[in-house]
């Protein structure tokens, strides 16, 4: 198993949530202090580099117009990390290509990062959460189709080496695609896609890309992975789906003592408690399938913020498989339980910093995980394993 330190570059210094309507989309940026923001960038980049020193890989993502993730141009931070880091794989998860007007530009940015890092890029593509469509002014209807066409165009741009090529699709049109530089890795960097529903995962499996899923827990994850494996097999990729095609993202905090772990875990819950977003930003028309949209209109949608706040306890999050937190032994067992429940996964994406988790606390969490949990994960869950077959094999041993 590979572990990745993931930080959203949060800006937590906000007034009480009652004083604003939404932490995303409409939160005035006068609340952002550029000097504090600059210090935070330094700090978060340092934490990524400490994770690298501890043998953990690096992951970042992109959101817009939000204090939860002040990384609206993830390729820029990725470029900095490409020069500052030396060994770690660099995962961007990912490029919101349904919201980017120029996929060829994305291909160029990613090729540059791959060169700068001498082939350490892992290139993720995401559809983006619903609150991203307003900042991007991006039409929420037909986003999936746009995302897949953009990915095809980016791969074409990466793999075309004989002068200008053309692409005339449904959403994107280019007559002279001939990017410089081309990627370091051949034929192109590994591709990751994030999905939180089974519907999308089958297609990712058919393509053989790495499937990542975020905070889908014991409830949602098995169906997503199963859909991926079915897509993989039906596309003729063979019966065995390597675990290194599947990734799971959770809040993770390992502490030397239960008390230390609990304190860190409580602070990590900020991800769930701070995400105050009104319904009209959560369900832009077309983002969810029509039957789901209809149920939301009927009032099925709940106030996410209130629900999250009510459910955001460390114990509930651990029980649901959204969080792995405790002593190294406890964290290992929690991960093992998830691994067995979903049929195995090869990448643990660690949401290891949030809100007011201070630098020292973040670093302690990274180090404790890296030194006392990670070695066991690598030993017990080898990268060569096959998904969905792990449980019987391990029991036989």
């Amino acid at each position, binding site marked *: 198993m590979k572990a990745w330190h993931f930080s959203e570059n949060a800006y937590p210094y906000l007034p009480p949530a009652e004083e604003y309507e939404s932490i995303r*989309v*409409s939160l005035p940026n006068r609340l952002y202090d550029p000097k504090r923001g600059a210090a935070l960038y330094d700090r978060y980049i340092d934490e990524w580099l400490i994770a690298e020193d501890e043998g953990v890989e690096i992951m970042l993502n992109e959101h817009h117009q939000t204090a939860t993730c002040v990384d609206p141009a993830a390729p820029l931070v990725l470029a900095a990390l490409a020069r500052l880091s030396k060994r770690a794989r660099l995962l961007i998860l990912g490029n919101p290509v349904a919201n980017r007007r120029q996929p060829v530009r994305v291909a160029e940015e990613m090729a540059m990062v791959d060169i700068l890092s001498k082939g350490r890029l892992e290139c993720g593509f995401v559809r983006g959460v619903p609150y991203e469509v*307003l900042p991007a*002014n991006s*039409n*929420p*209807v*037909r986003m999936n189709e746009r995302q897949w066409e953009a990915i095809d165009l980016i791969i074409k741009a990466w793999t075309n080496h004989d002068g200008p090529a053309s692409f005339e699709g*449904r959403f994107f049109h280019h007559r002279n695609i001939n990017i410089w530089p081309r990627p370091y890795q051949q034929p192109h960097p590994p591709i990751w896609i994030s999905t939180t529903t089974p519907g999308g995962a089958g297609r990712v499996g058919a393509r053989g890309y790495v499937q990542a899923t975020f905070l889908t827990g014991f409830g949602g994850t098995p169906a997503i992975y199963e859909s991926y494996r079915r897509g993989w097999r039906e596309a003729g990729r063979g019966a065995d789906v390597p675990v290194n095609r599947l990734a799971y993202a959770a809040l993770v905090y390992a502490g030397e003592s239960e008390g230390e772990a609990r304190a860190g875990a409580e602070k990590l819950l900020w991800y769930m408690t701070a995400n105050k977003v*009104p*319904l*009209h*930003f959560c369900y*832009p*028309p*077309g983002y969810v399938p*029509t*039957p789901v*949209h*209809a149920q*939301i*209109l*009927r*009032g099925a949608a709940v106030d996410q913020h209130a629900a999250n706040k009510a459910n955001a306890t460390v114990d509930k999050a651990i029980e649901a498989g959204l969080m792995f937190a405790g002593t190294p032994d406890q964290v290992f067992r929690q991960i093992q339980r998830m691994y067995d429940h979903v049929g195995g996964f090869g990448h643990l994406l660690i949401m290891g910093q949030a809100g007011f988790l201070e630098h020292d606390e973040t670093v302690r969490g990274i180090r404790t995980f890296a030194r006392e949990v990670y070695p066991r994960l690598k030993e017990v869950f080898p990268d060569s394993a096959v998904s969905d077959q792990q449980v019987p094999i391990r029991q036989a041993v």
Partner: protein
Amino acid sequence: MLSIAGIELELFERGQGAPILYLHGGEGIFPDLPFLDLLAKTRRVIAPSHPGFGRSSLPDWLDSVDDIGHLYLEVMDHLGLTRTDVVGFSLGGWIAAEIATRVPERFEHLVLIAPVGVKTGPPDRLDIPDIFAMAREKLDRLRFHDPANNPVDPGKLTDDELHVVARNRETLALLTWEPYMHNPKLKHRLHRVSAPVLLLRGESDGIVSADYLGRYAALFPQARIETIAGAGHFPQVEQRERTAAAIAHFLDDRQAARRSGAAS
């Protein structure tokens, strides 16, 4: 259902007499059906559900009001509407304006109720408030003179009806998301519209402002504006009788004037 250009169109027809092509707004045709019955007392009313609205199909390639305008040229040919009146509400007003710039000779009168479709204000201010970025309650305050008049209560609809409401919203987003609620080209084409135009607006409409409607009207060679008291964005719902009367008066007045002109 009507099959045109590979699209299955739901079509409502009411009454007899000289034709009115009725083009519904973003909420679909169902809230307007009682109003259609009023218009149909003296006229033949032909009202399609736009592609992706109601039970009309939505082909993959269709994503603009411009596409619908072209489609309706074919619909008019198919129905033999060589010359007709058109009444369009909101999005439907935009569609009506688009068609009338293409075949001005085929329209007797245009009635545009709270139409969208042009951008006439400054770049740093929306002409039409962003209906996709506000809470439902605020939207209803902007749209209705009295929000209690909203005829669509999701709690009381069947699953099928609610599915239609949801799909209507999705198609509306598809068509109007960007550029928001307008075609930048349209205002440069409206001078071609030769028919007299009546622009109607509910006095309490928080979506289509009086200023906006005034600037819109100025783009037509012959246009006048009427305001309906006690109504918001949906005068055909909140003030059905008055709205129908204003339209009938406009259509009949002109016919009378033309008849007297022909006689003299």
